């Protein structure tokens, strides 16, 4: 493939990026943001996958098996913590206008300058090689595609190197879209859109190669793995323990967990460029899914490459590109190259933006601001100078990376560079995570931890890699510093058997965390630090607290303040911001002295531009009395916090009260209902009692009034009286029974009972009654044991009631009553059937109510007390059974009750 096609494609792709970024910014200006979308946010996190992922994973997989996957497993585990942790960091950044990880940590620890400087230096040292790695990937892939080395053209040195021009084009792109606005905490919409787009490109390209290798060259996953398993040296890669150790696996997972949040480019995309906290929710699963997809074909490509290029000297790092090229798939090769190119460029773009912001805000600007001459600048002049500093930083970073690539990177293995960067940024984790959860964490502790971690990182990671590259002698590696063998960089304090990155990670983190915690506990903190700690740790509670706004108590004149902001943002923009803020908080602008809130606002605005530490100094220069009583502010903050707590407590209490009231009301309603039922019951009972009483009295009066009555007649009346009295006492005893069951005073007197015997006894006793009406009772059960546990006397009463009812309602002379027993799993069913007039369906449940008959006297002439079925139901309920009726009018009725065996 011609060199020019390759370069042309790369440049065309860069132009496409320009177009996308430009379009995104155009959309933003029209108020229709392209990037304010959870999926775009999740994709922009895909900047994590660099050329190292794209080419290096396959290389690593082909020599060490699945070890490489830790770099993606770690972020997946961390994704679960996005909601509790990342969201908190985002909230802090947005309320404090923080624009980089260095800014974040320095702001937390009292807006400390030196901390920001140290972090920036560590970032630059740790990340520049990583950027160089991307440039190396670009030049190498171009070389492979053009089937010749990168320096093949006639020109000598960097002028003949494609990578040099690509680097310059990238620098131009970053300058154009990365330094649009002076406010670094503002979103770079164009850049984010371009990066999200690149994430899609590299994923699709890698999937395309993967499909080509897996299903085009080979016959699917199974085919590749089966063939690989035939080769002993490849089969060894199937098992982790043969190539690595579990402890190394664990440490790499941890390292990657930290990297996904603390790498400057991840912090830039995940935190600074986040437009909406809720987007995190989508990223929690979309981002790991992205990682899974981009890794699916790594192993097949690695093994495929090993199988195909077994006897050649094709390097495993290049399989992704070499395989389609080897099979003459030119278009696919070009697409693959673009995928790798996009992986490299997206990383370079974002990392450079993040680094340049840090460099200009934390190193260059503070230096300039402290010079007297600079301070007397004209309005708006600062903004130009700062923007130029940032542009210069971008160019500087890219050139440094380019030089590193040309001079050093040739000698160092690719994979280790990425992991060394991971280990560098992991040094921020204790200070940052501790800073947002632990109020006691102090600036001195953070400084101690980061510095010590930094030193150990350098000693255990950089020194060995330099020695390996031949930059320094091998002597220190073998014999240790000053010949002390316990100081060997790869076996510090005699710790051997770990791979160099795990070793570096373990020692640096141990010393980092240890000193961070120890110094924090034992050191005092300034008021400023205590205040920041309060805000950071309790950000979700303080976000709306008015006290966060009253920080400055010194007096600043309004014109001075407005001039200061104008210097950085230009007069128009400054005036607009001030007016908007004043309107929103109803601050009068015509007073000579600025409102404290306005001073605080000015500091926040400047923070976005030059970082919080510098902003603090700048605002300090215009406030007359810098003697702010921070402890007082802290007190206000805490008091308002207490108020909020108190308020919450009150609300909780009143809620509880409300609940109790509701419960009481419900209980009251229930009581009233029951009272009504009782009244109704009493009314019906007395009514029922009166009927027999009336007839007794009437008959007694007749006898009394007619002494001459015939003996026959008299006997008839007296027997009537006796009958009515019996009915009366029966009624009363039934009422009493019912009351006893309902109140629960009746205890079950359970014993083992033969159901058939019980039924026989009752039927025997009611048979004479049936004979009177010439009704036949059929006993319908086979001879067997029908054992169950129940209160025999009560069940007898039920059966008696049902039978007497059946006899009462069966037609004279041809009435038939059938009593049956059925077994139904764990219960007995007893059926009492008659061929009487039946019961209409709508009454099937009502008849089991108390006094149903009495209340429905219009339906039929009352027979019995009307309590019998209610009592039956109560008794069966007490036994845990059921009772119901199946009947149709004119077709007889069937009363069924069940009794559980136990």
């Amino acid at each position: 493939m011609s060199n020019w096609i390759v370069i042309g494609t790369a440049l065309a792709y860069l132009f496409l990026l320009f177009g996308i970024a430009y379009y995104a910014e155009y959309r933003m200006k029209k108020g229709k943001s392209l990037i304010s979308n959870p999926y775009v946010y999740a994709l922009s996190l895909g900047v994590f996958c660099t050329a190292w992922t794209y080419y290096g994973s396959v290389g690593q997989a082909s020599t060490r098996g699945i070890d490489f996957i830790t770099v993606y497993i770690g972020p997946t585990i961390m994704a679960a913590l996005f909601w509790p942790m990342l969201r908190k960091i985002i909230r802090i950044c947005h309320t404090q206008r923080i624009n980089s990880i260095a800014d974040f940590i320095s702001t937390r620890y009292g807006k400390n300058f030196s901390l920001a400087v140290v972090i920036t230096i560590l970032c630059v040292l740790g990340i520049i090689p990583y950027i160089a790695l991307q440039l190396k990937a670009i030049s190498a892939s171009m070389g492979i595609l053009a089937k010749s080395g990168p320096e093949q053209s006639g020109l000598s040195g960097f002028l003949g190197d494609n990578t040099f021009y690509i680097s310059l084009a990238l620098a131009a792109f970053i300058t154009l879209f990365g330094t649009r606005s002076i406010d670094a905490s503002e979103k770079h919409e164009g850049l984010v859109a371009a990066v999200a787009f690149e994430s899609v490109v590299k994923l699709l390209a890698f999937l395309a190669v993967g499909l080509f290798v897996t299903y085009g060259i080979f016959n699917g996953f199974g085919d590749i793995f089966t063939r690989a398993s035939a080769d002993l040296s490849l089969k060894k890669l199937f098992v982790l323990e043969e190539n690595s150790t579990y402890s190394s696996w664990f440490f790499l997972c941890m390292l990657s967990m930290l990297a996904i949040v603390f790498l400057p480019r991840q912090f830039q995309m995940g935190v600074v460029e986040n437009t909406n906290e809720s987007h995190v929710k989508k990223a929690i699963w979309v981002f790991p899914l992205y990682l899974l997809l981009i890794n699916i074909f790594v192993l097949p490509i690695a093994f495929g490459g090993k199988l195909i290029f077994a006897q050649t000297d094709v390097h495993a790092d290049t399989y992704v590109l070499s395989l389609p090229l080897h099979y003459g798939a030119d278009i696919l090769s070009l697409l693959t190259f673009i995928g790798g190119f996009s992986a490299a460029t997206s990383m370079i773009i974002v990392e450079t933006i993040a680094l340049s912001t840090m460099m200009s805000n934390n190193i260059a600007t503070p230096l300039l601001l402290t010079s007297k001459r600079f301070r007397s600048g004209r309005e708006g002049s600062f903004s130009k100078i700062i923007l130029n500093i940032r542009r210069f930083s971008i160019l500087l970073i890219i050139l440094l990376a380019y030089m590193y690539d040309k001079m050093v990177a040739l000698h160092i293995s690719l994979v280790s560079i990425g992991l060394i960067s991971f280990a560098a940024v992991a040094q921020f984790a204790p200070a940052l995570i501790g800073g947002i959860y632990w109020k006691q964490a102090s600036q001195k502790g953070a400084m101690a931890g980061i510095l010590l971690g930094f030193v150990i990182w350098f000693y255990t990671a950089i020194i060995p890699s330099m020695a390996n590259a031949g930059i320094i002698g091998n002597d220190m590696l073998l014999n240790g510093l000053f010949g002390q063998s316990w100081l060997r960089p790869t076996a510090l304090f005699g710790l051997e058997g770990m791979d160099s990155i795990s070793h570096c990670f373990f020692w640096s983190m141990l010393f980092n965390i240890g000193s961070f915690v120890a110094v924090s506990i034992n050191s005092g903190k300034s008021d400023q630090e205590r205040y920041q700690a309060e805000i950071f740790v309790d950000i979700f509670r303080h976000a709306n607290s008015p006290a966060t706004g009253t920080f400055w108590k010194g007096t600043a004149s309004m014109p001075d303040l407005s001039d200061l902001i104008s210097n950085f943002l230009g007069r128009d923009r400054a005036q607009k911001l001030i007016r908007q803020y004043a309107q929103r908080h109803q601050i009068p602008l015509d007073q000579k002295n600025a409102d404290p809130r306005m001073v605080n606002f000015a500091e926040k605005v400047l923070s976005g531009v030059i970082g919080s530490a510098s902003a603090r100094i700048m605002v300090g220069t215009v406030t007359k009395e810098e003697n702010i009583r921070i402890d007082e502010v802290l007190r206000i903050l805490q008091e308002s916090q207490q108020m909020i707590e108190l308020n919450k407590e009150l609300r909780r209490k009143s809620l509880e009260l409300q609940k109790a009231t509701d419960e009481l009301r419900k209980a009251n309603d229930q009581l009233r209902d029951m009272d009504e039922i009782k009244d109704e019951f009493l009314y019906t009972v007395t009514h029922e009692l009166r009927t027999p009483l009336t007839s007794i009295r009437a008959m007694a009066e007749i006898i009394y009034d007619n002494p001459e009555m015939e003996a026959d007649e008299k006997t008839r009346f007296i027997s009537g009286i006796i009958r009515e009295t019996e009915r009366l006492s029966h009624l009363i005893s039934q009422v009493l029974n019912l009351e006893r069951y309902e109140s629960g005073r009746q205890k079950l007197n359970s014993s083992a009972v033969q159901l058939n015997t019980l039924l026989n006894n009752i039927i025997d006793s009611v048979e004479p009654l049936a004979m009177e009406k010439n009704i036949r009772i059929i006993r319908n059960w086979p001879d067997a044991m029908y054992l169950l546990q129940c209160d025999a006397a009560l069940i007898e009463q039920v059966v008696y009631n049902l039978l007497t009812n059946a006899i009462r309602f069966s037609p004279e002379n041809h009435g038939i009553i059938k009593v049956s027993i059925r077994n139904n799993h764990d219960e007995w069913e007893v059926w009492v059937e008659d061929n009487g007039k039946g019961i209409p369906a709508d009454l099937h449940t009502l008849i089991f109510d108390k006094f149903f008959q009495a209340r429905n006297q219009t339906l039929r002439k009352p027979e019995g007390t009307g309590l019998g079925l209610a009592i039956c139901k109560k008794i069966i309920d007490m036994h845990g059974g059921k009772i119901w009726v199946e009947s149709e009018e004119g077709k007889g009725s069937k009363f069924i009750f069940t009794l559980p065996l136990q």
Partner: protein
Amino acid sequence: MPDRIKKQRFAALAVLLLVLFSYPLLSIADKNRMLAGFPMLYLYIFLAWAIGIYLLYRAAEKDNGKKGKEP
């Protein structure tokens, strides 16, 4: 507070994932054996990963549906 519960759910998930991808669970699958055409370890890692992502999806999107039902 629902957010507190949600945070705890995620913390638990993080622990679960860490355990799934660490020794000793990892060593169960780490054998020189093929399963359905895949080396057992590879199959385990990708399956556990996919399940982990599904659980993350459930945890992240769970109260979305609920929000609509709340008065």
